[in-house]
């Protein structure tokens, strides 16, 4: 079954701005194009403006400035019930007095579809709810209610489907299952999905493109791989996974084209960072390296990596979590770094706290961020 028939267009927001009467700016001059048919995630901590953005697209919140278009159609000031957009609400907002079938046919009936029985049947089958059609929402489990909310929105074949933390109320196991399910349904119907979440894993698992939002602006936009491997700000580096950020002084550039590197002095060791991964022009910078890219070996043993090399680090703590072990290392300059090591058994046993180790990483995994940014940004923000 294909729901994506008819001409559709990209969802475009230009200079979108939301200022509440109390002066709080929730969304600041947002420019964003969400390609038609894509699974797009708006990721950020609570209060970052992602839900406000979604509500402006749905028409539940007025934009202070800026425009919203779907294709050529300007919907900035259209009433919510006149927009080709549907929402899956955070707590589903199912109509408690209506059955599942009645909830699902609510949209088609309001649009004047005379007898939506067949469509209701199809969508209930797609969301595996056929058996529940005659029940009331209160009789359903959380996961089933979530699917009803999805079916109720999907049946209208909106040009854009907005999902506001749709999995937030589910337990971890169900959430994982629904992530896969949602992705499957999106691929099946081919509609544009805009998914708002604060869960980075959820965003990365499902979305083709992720926009990381913070304090009303988009910090970075890209594929999950791009965002994770080459974050542009300390906020993205910390909010999406974890990062070690080490102070460094920029020495200069070498090479050209794709091979151009920036040489950075990091507490006496000169490291090279590919120019495409350098996101600052200043003399100082944060050298970033993901914890799983940090390799360690007992002092004096060879490390299997052609990279930047440091000795004299001490293991401060280790936590064994089965599939991997998380070490905290104290570097010679006093800073503590994280190192996540797969338990391949290669070394035979864990490194003891207090052991002195050599540390290394491949230079192509490091990135350089602006030193004026807070190294703690994006930490401890859920």
């Amino acid at each position, binding site marked *: 079954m294909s729901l994506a028939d008819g001409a559709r267009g990209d969802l475009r927001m230009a200079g979108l701005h939301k200022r509440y009467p109390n002066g709080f700016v929730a969304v600041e001059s947002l420019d964003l194009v969400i390609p038609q048919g894509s699974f797009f995630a708006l990721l950020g901590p609570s209060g970052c403006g992602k839900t406000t953005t979604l509500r402006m697209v*749905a*028409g*539940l919140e007025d934009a202070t400035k800026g425009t919203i278009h779907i294709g050529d159609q300007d919907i900035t000031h259209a*009433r*919510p*019930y*006149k927009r080709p*957009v*549907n*929402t899956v*609400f955070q*707590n589903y*907002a*199912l*109509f*408690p*007095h209506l059955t599942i079938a009645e909830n699902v046919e*609510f*949209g088609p009936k*309001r*649009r004047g579809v005379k007898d939506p029985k067949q469509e209701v049947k199809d969508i209930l089958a797609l969301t595996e709810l056929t058996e529940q059609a005659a029940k009331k929402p209160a009789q359903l489990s959380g996961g089933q209610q979530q699917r009803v909310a999805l079916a*109720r*929105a999907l049946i*209208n074949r909106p040009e854009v489907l907005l999902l506001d933390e749709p999995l937030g109320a589910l337990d971890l196991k169900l959430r994982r299952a629904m992530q896969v399910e949602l992705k499957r349904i999106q691929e099946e119907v081919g509609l544009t999905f805009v998914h708002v979440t604060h869960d980075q894993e959820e965003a990365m698992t499902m979305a083709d493109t992720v926009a990381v939002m913070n304090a009303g602006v988009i910090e970075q936009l890209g594929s999950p791989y791009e965002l994770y491997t080459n974050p542009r700000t300390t906020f993205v580096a910390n909010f999406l996974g974890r990062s070690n950020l080490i102070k460094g002084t920029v020495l200069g550039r070498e090479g050209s084209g794709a091979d151009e590197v920036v040489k950075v002095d990091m507490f006496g060791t000169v490291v090279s960072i590919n120019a495409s991964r350098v996101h600052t022009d200043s003399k100082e910078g944060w050298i970033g390296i993901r914890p799983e890219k940090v390799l360690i070996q007992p002092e004096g043993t060879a490390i299997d990596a052609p990279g930047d090399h440091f000795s004299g680090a001490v293991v401060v703590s280790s936590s064994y979590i089965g599939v991997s072990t998380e070490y905290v290392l104290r570097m010679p300059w006093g800073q503590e770094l994280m190192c996540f090591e797969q338990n391949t058994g290669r070394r035979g046993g864990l490194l003891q706290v207090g052991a002195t180790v050599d540390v290394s990483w491949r230079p192509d995994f490091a990135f350089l961020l602006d030193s004026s940014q807070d190294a703690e940004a994006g930490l401890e923000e859920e």
Partner: protein
Amino acid sequence: MTALQRAFTGRSAYLLIAPAALWLGLFFLFPMLSLLTTSLSDPSGSPVYGYELTWRLQNYGEALADYWPYMVRSLFYAGIATAICLVLGFIIAYAIAFKAGRFKTIMLVLVIAPFFTSFLVRTLSWKLILADNGWVVETLKALHFMPDDGRLLATPVAVVAGLTYNFLPFMILPLYTSLEKIDPRLNEAAADLYANPAQRFAKVIWPLALPGVVGGTLLTFIPATGDYINASLLGSPNTQMVGNKIQALFTTAGDYPHAAALSVILMVLIVGMVLVYVRRAGTEDLL
């Protein structure tokens, strides 16, 4: 089974119910029986020397034949007052539940505030408001909404206005309780699903407020039907309700059997109407 449930099973449950049961037995069941026997007694007795129970069913026929216009008028006045209360009460309750913000508590207190003064005093003050030389009548005349010899006091309008005023809080409170429970996101969801404001009201707000509507209309209609204060203070002999007649039969005419019969008829009528109404509204399980 929770500790609370355990505490309320077996003998302790009966012990806990006992005081209330005793109270109701003494002050509800007994007077009801007394009313029923009186209604079937010979009217030739007197309040002083008592009435003889002769199972005189004619009392009912006579009461109905003589006083049915009062019954109809009561239902009519109470019906109109209830309808006005529903419209006004819904607007006020909706405003308090969804639009009042930080003024919510103040507004609720204002709704209840009239209860701090006597029902009688408040109705008497309406007599002043609606008086022939009062400001309401004078203003209406000045604006030519009313002929120069027109009046409000001693008209059906005054009685219905009094009933509406006196029973409005009983409409607002149950409506507010129902409306307040409605998640505002349901309204947003309906808007998102192509429902315009009128459809949102008809398909979401109204059905979810139905328990409050049923509760409010019952709490307004039932006491308004039996009310006699408003009709006697604000009305005229032509606006007398069944309550006035019952009161007159008891106090001035001393005809207890017919008064009792009329009371029983009124009671049966109201209970019957309530049952039909509740069944039709489909809210038995919500009451």
